[in-house]
């Protein structure tokens, strides 16, 4: 499969998986308030969406945005792979996930008002947010690599 297409599919798989992990993590108490809920609250503050479409509707809007962002960030993966061909999918994903976390959550999200800022959030929540970004990027890289690998004809 063509590399960019494989990466985008990988990003979509990773988007679904990280959402499931955030939901399960929150419900089980393994994770604190997760980024998807911060984003739902942010959308509601900006638009009053909960009154119009409820919490479920706002969550669907957030999930759609999340998948779009997952696909968009995944599309950059083949270019990164060319820059670092010797790295494994896990290593590349960890680096890319860390970079996405630092830029998106460390810099952009507090400015937009989606999050409170990583120092204010404290080490536990910041660590969880970083871990979810790493998970997203590692899963994207692994799935993309599997899909773009030549078919085994044994």
């Amino acid at each position, binding site marked *: 499969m063509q590399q960019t297409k494989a990466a985008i599919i990988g990003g979509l798989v990773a988007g*679904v*998986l990280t*959402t*499931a*992990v955030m*939901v*399960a*993590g929150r*419900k*089980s*108490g*393994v*994770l604190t308030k997760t980024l998807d809920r911060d984003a739902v609250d942010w959308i509601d503050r900006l638009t009053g969406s909960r009154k119009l479409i409820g919490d479920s509707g706002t969550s669907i809007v957030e999930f759609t945005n999340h998948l779009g962002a997952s696909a968009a960030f995944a599309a950059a993966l083949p270019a990164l792979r060319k820059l670092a061909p010797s790295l494994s999918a*896990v290593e590349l994903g960890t680096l890319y996930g860390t970079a996405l976390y630092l830029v998106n959550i460390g810099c952009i999200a507090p400015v937009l008002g989606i999050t409170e800022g990583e120092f204010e959030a404290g080490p*536990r929540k910041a*660590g*969880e947010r*970083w*871990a*979810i970004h*790493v*998970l997203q990027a*590692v*899963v994207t890289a*692994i*799935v993309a690599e*599997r899909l773009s690998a030549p078919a085994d004809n044994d």
Partner: protein
Amino acid sequence: MRDPEKTADAELAFALGKITRRVLDNANGALGEAALSRFANNLLEAGDEKIGTDVLMVFVAGFQEGDPPERRAAGSER
């Protein structure tokens, strides 16, 4: 799962389950048994009707298997 495509899907789901566990362990320290069970149950619930049951079960199996080798070795010595 004898179909090669299904086998590949299962291998991938298992690998992703292991990675998910490791990432969570790295974020919050090793998950206790109770937290692990709660998380796995909620994960099955979250994926129900969205992901094929067989793939989901293999993912959770990978998640539960995802102990780092050193911790598995320590556990087996007891």
